């Protein structure tokens, strides 16, 4: 193993230097601008789906009669405009400890309430992750005014902003997951196609003989994979810094929806999952690319490989809309979609141990794919090994 890693380091160091110190690396740094625009647009479509699923629902702690009046007002408003655009109401009977009840409803994982309304009819109070002049508060004021028919004075709604859970609302967290997933996908999409052509250089320059005689083929694969990971991380640092500057100057970093695990943990996990996503897809593409003899063959392979990546992304993106479902679990377990699905999970769910298990699972698969790739390379490209005979028989 020491020999494999030493060889990988020598190859990785050369590849990293050759990549980063070349003039074309500047173009590489500008590369994400265009697909990122596409990613934002595509992310918007999916987040629209997420938004539709997460219609704002307010828990109402009130006597039955008060709730019926409010619900009737809601129905009238829904009849006048689109039902989907009017917030939903769910009644709960008041309990002795109202504060505890309110807290429990806000943090409930089963029903995802944006806010809790109490104090009906005279002193309505709305508490939750909402803004005093936001859409939810405005709609409730309208409903309360409508429900209090006969009263000339519009009831004063007291709004209290609360961060109910560390990561904000499920909708916000899903959006954070989507953004992280899209970013990971596009960064990997940009970089993995580079790995397709990595071994073509060695093969066309005939250096492969020198390398194959000096170090195990696994070293070549690992070295190339990690060199490109290091180069891409360098690019990622530049892109992230630029992206953060743009976001900060546009809306302010605080406006970004907070993930369930909290920002420091989430960013740490996102970095790890980027590396794992890159290593997993990179190992697959390195293996596929190693079979190509010419640049033309690599170019031909690029399209199906990109489509494959799109499929994996679509699979992982679908999991965001159904956290905890069988689909989400499948996306988290399937090695190639696991990093994308898990980064979304980091945004939506606070647990850390599933990430430890997922990362170990992904590392195992990187090792397996690299091993397989190296064997395949020896067998098909270097034409190494004994000739296999089916069932030990050979025609005379």
């Amino acid at each position, binding site marked *: 193993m020491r020999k494999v890693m030493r060889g990988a380091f020598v190859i990785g160091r*050369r590849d990293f230097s050759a990549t980063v110190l070349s003039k074309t690396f500047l173009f590489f740094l500008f590369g994400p601008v265009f697909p990122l625009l596409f990613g934002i647009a595509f992310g918007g479509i999916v987040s629209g789906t997420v938004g539709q699923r997460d219609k704002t629902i307010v828990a109402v702690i009130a006597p039955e009669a008060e709730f019926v009046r409010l619900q009737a007002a809601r129905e009238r408003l829904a009849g006048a405009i689109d039902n989907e655009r009017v917030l939903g109401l769910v009644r709960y009977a008041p309990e002795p400890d109202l504060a505890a009840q309110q807290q429990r409803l806000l943090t409930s994982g089963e029903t995802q309430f944006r806010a809790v309304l109490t104090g009906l009819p005279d002193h309505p109070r709305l508490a939750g992750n909402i803004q005093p002049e936001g859409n939810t508060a405005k709609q409730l004021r309208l409903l309360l005014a409508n429900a209090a028919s006969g009263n000339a004075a519009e009831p004063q709604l007291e709004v209290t902003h609360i961060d109910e859970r560390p990561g904000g609302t499920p909708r916000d967290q899903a959006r954070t997951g989507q953004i992280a997933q899209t970013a990971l996908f596009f960064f990997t999409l940009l970089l993995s196609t580079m790995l397709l052509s990595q071994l073509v*250089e060695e093969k066309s320059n005939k250096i*492969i003989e*020198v*390398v*194959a*005689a*000096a170090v195990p083929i696994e070293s070549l694969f690992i070295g190339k994979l990690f060199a490109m990971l290091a180069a891409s991380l360098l690019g990622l640092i530049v892109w992230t810094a630029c992206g953060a500057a743009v976001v900060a100057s546009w809306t302010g970093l605080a406006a970004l929806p907070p993930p369930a695990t909290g920002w420091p943990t989430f960013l740490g996990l996102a970095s790890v999952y980027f590396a794992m996503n890159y290593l997993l897809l990179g190992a697959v593409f390195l293996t596929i690319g190693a079979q190509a003899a010419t640049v033309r063959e690599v170019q031909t392979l690029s399209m199906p490989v990109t489509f494959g990546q799109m499929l994996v992304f679509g699979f992982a993106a679908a999991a965001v809309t159904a956290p905890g479902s069988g689909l989400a679990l499948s996306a988290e377990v399937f090695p190639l979609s696991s990093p994308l699905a898990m980064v979304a999970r980091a945004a939506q769910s606070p647990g850390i141990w599933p990430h430890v298990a997922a990362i170990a699972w992904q590392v195992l698969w990187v090792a397996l794919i690299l091993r397989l790739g190296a064997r395949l390379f020896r067998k098909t490209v270097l034409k*190494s090994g*004994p000739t296999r005979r089916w069932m030990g028989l050979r025609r005379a």
Partner: protein
Amino acid sequence: MLRQAQHERFQGDSAVEAIDLVKDFGATRAVDGVSLSVPSGSIYGLLGPNGAGKTTTLRMLLGIIDPSSGTRRILGRTKPIDAAEEVGYLPEERGLYPAMHARDAIAFMGALRGLPLKEARRRAELMLTEHDLGDWAKKPIRTLSKGMAQTVQLLGSIIHKPQLIVLDEPFSGLDAINQARLEELIRREAQNGATIIFSTHVIAHAERLCERIAIVAKGKVAFEGRVDDARARLRPIVRLRTRASDGPWRSAIPSDARLEGDHLIFELPESGPEPLLRALLDGDAGIEALAIERPGLHDAFVAIAGESAAAAMGEEKPQ
């Protein structure tokens, strides 16, 4: 010193041993039961025409490919990769990264074989200076001539002072001056204790350099042993020019003698040179010129590998 110590470990042993190596590429058998033994510290030639299986044999010995069957032992190790840090290799198809500087290319090959990069760079600069390429140390490979690039690759294959140096067609593409330099380098490395195996289809190089050879034809070893033993398979050749075209002396000349210009060419009879000389003198042959030549390796090769193999070998003339 290290190399000397390591060399002593294998003293008396074979640096390389191959037993019944077979390599099939699909239905084609490229190497068919090659067995050879390369003594430590020797210069060993692998002779054969193009397509004889020399490169495939070397690639199996180096572990680049695994044999379909058979065993190999390199510097005492059954897995060639375990000996990789003590082996240098110049492949037949030369290859370097075109954008890499000459010094860095050599250092990279050294680092692959376990040298620390700093030390590899120091040695690379020294070696380039020794080979009159000091001014090219920090120039990209793509700016070097073919001969220079070949020298760079050769230096890269010996930078780590390997115990075993494997050179596949090392003289191919070199001009006469560089061929002579390479021969000198091979001799020097052997004097320093390295074992050298090189393949060639130019017999003159093998004849000048090798103590032992293997003649490979059609994937099989047709001969393996000392160069002198290969030559000893043939009788010395007599080249004779006489004033008289006929006479009693003709009875001493073998019936299969052939005429090349005004010379008679024939194998020295088993009875040796004295009876022949006596017969020529007594028979009034009128000797104008007489030469008894030891057969060359080329002649031995023809006898061992056959005319067709020799014809294939003869495409490139030695410089």
